[in-house]
């Protein structure tokens, strides 16, 4: 039961990846694409923790902690670049 629900959740996350990619492709400005990148990264954190459940290894949570840190840094750098104050 639990596994079935989690599989459905994973497929839903995969579909949302596709939709975000469509926004990345048609995005009018660079900021749209950065928002797409941020959305992808944050949803990936959830996906990795779900994978930690599927493989039964607690160690994968460390990977998502690193993800959380680095997406933050990347988006801030790009925003600083865009407002010409890097």
């Amino acid at each position: 039961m639990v596994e079935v629900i989690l599989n459905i959740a994973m497929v839903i996350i995969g579909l949302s990846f596709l939709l975000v990619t469509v926004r990345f492709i048609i995005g009018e400005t660079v900021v749209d694409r950065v928002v797409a990148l941020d959305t992808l990264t944050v949803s990936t954190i959830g996906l990795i923790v779900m994978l930690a459940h599927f493989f039964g290894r607690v160690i994968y949570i460390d990977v998502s902690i690193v993800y959380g840190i680095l997406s933050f840094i990347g988006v801030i750098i790009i925003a600083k670049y865009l407002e010409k104050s890097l």
Partner: protein
Amino acid sequence: MSYTFIVIIMGIIMLVMAFTAIYHKNLKVAVIASGIISLFASVIYIFLAAPDVAITEAAIGSALTVVIFFYVLNKIRLTDDTK
């Protein structure tokens, strides 16, 4: 089954991003696209049971490379504006 599905989706997205990274006129967009390739590559490393490589790819390949690219792009743009 759902593993395969999500890997196929990420593969399609990576191919689209590779096309964008190589052919898009705007350098910023190309750099962001290559960052997304690294991001999904590191998720695939988790599927392939390699968390060490996944952490390294996320920390170094995805974040630091993008940061260095943007520093250099900034530098090029700054000099360009003055001319």
